[in-house]
């Protein structure tokens, strides 16, 4: 497309790559640029030595998986947020605000308590995440009048979210305090500190399954954002489209929640920022949201793991940035929400 802002997209991709590379240099274990480059080249070319250097171990077992997971989770949250905002025609929604994250958390907590394998935990998170969004949408559809539908949907999401979070608390209260409870609590804080290379593998498949339909349907999401009746009259099967988009986004949310816990607000903040840069067209907005979301969470995680001696939970930082942004949106939503 002539109008596609390729320049901006390329720039965003370059920024992400550069941020990822610089993040490799950061951490408790001090590493110089040459050490990192050396470890990278010997790691990727297949080492001739039997014993890996300490630098290699830190790089490949700790930093690289963490950087990849942070990027994926940020990208997934931002892309889902962009998708949610379009299909619900609502500037103030994101997967966490509509209860998807809380729903998925319940699935994960349940899975941990029952001793599910990771894949089972992810499936449980997907099912309960979808259930939570479904309930939110059903409640707001019944309550909303034309004028206040935007806020009614947000409020319904908060209600559903708090219900599912109380289920999580219920599970914590009955979970084995010596093995399961610490696992649930630690994971709930929203942290990437325990990430291993196995997590990368677990994240890749659901991310791909989730993002491919969104990419294929990104033009139709434009049309759907005009409103249901117009989209129907233009030949779009709105029910099916909305279902596919919600399912794909929620799958990505469930996968990231099961690896990193609840990392709030990314899905709200990043799509707005991306829209400022590339406009509302999903053909450009979706890639931009992915790239900015990845970069953003990577940066936040860099701060989380290197700002203080003990790690700051990731979710804490994203809330500190996201919540004020939400207030800013509240202030301007009446005037139109495109900037």
């Amino acid at each position: 497309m002539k109008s596609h802002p390729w320049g901006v997209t390329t720039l965003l991709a370059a920024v992400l790559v550069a941020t990822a590379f610089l993040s490799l240099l950061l951490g408790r274990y001090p590493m110089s640029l040459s050490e990192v480059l050396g470890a990278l080249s010997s790691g990727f070319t297949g080492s001739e030595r039997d014993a890996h250097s300490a630098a290699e171990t830190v790089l490949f077992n700790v930093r690289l998986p963490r950087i990849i997971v942070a990027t994926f989770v940020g990208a997934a949250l931002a892309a889902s947020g962009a998708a949610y905002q379009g299909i619900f025609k609502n500037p103030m929604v994101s997967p966490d605000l509509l209860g998807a994250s809380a729903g998925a958390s319940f699935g994960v907590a349940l899975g941990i308590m029952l001793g599910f394998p990771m894949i089972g935990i992810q499936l449980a998170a997907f099912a309960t995440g979808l259930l939570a969004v479904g309930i939110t949408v059903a409640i707001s559809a019944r309550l909303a009048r034309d004028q206040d539908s935007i806020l009614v949907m947000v409020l319904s999401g908060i209600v559903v979210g708090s219900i599912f979070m109380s289920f999580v608390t219920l599970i914590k209260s009955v979970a084995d305090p010596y093995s399961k409870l610490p696992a649930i609590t630690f994971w709930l804080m929203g942290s990437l500190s325990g990430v291993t290379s196995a997590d990368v593998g677990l994240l890749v498949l659901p991310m791909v399954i989730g993002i491919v339909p969104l990419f294929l349907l990104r033009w139709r999401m434009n049309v759907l954002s005009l409103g249901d009746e117009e989209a129907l009259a233009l030949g779009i099967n709105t029910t099916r489209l909305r279902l596919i988009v919600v399912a794909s986004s929620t799958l990505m949310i469930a996968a990231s929640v099961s690896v990193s816990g609840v990392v709030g607000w990314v899905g709200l903040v990043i799509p707005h920022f991306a829209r400022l840069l590339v406009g509302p067209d999903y053909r450009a907005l979706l890639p931009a949201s992915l790239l900015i979301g990845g970069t953003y969470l990577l940066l936040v995680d860099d701060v989380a793991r290197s700002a203080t001696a003990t790690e700051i939970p990731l979710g804490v930082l994203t809330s500190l940035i996201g919540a004020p942004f939400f207030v800013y949106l509240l202030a301007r939503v009446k005037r139109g929400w495109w900037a």
Partner: protein
Amino acid sequence: MKLQCHNLTCGYGTRAVTHDATLEVSTGEVVCLLGPNGSGKTTLFKTLLGFLRPMSGTITIDGADITRWTRPQLAREIAYVPQMHTPSFPFRVLDVVMMGRSAHLGPFTSPTRHDEEISDAAVRDAGMAHLREKPYTEISGGERQMVLITRAMVQEARLLIMDEPTANLDYGNQMRVLSHIRQLAQRGMGVLMTTHFPNHAFMCADRCALMHQGRIEATGRPEDVITEDSLQQLYGVPTSIHHLRNDTGSEMRVCVPSMDWKITP
């Protein structure tokens, strides 16, 4: 090509809003639906467009039942120009027009260069080349109405349903939109529209239907259907109809409300 509904009863859930509506639109003609607020015009349109399932009765195009058609199939025959709305995202004018191509695209494809060329040509034909790159949210109401009509053109449907195309427009834009609607019919489109102005029906309709309390009370040529009696019955306002000749020599009919506008001290 002819869109017909026969004994159509439609409404929400089990509550019927219109009863036994029978109406037809053929390509090449403009049909105007007149009726007071709440008479069921919008519900009838929503049912014709397939947003609502008919409660009873039939909707056909050239005799074929369209209530089971798929969305794209329907969209290739009937286009819709909705009542002017508050736009949500600042899409470019060209992108909004291009959305009219949706029914011609595969389920997983974005518009191609070909679709962009069609849309671009339509924008130029409509005299809006200067608006092509502008955000749809930042153009005037009249321009927005023209963008929606242009979008319907690239949809390449031969029937057009328009919900109050002159609502919220100033006098100049009302006249320009009405004359554009006439041109569409001359180019072979069939237009079914609602309006709140009987004068507009006189200006651009070939046929007219009057709707009252969910029923179509009369259909026919505007001069036969829009009478002093029917307007009194429809709107509860005594009205006289006058015959005029405008500066171009066209014969016109004009409704004038018979009310005393002088404020007596």
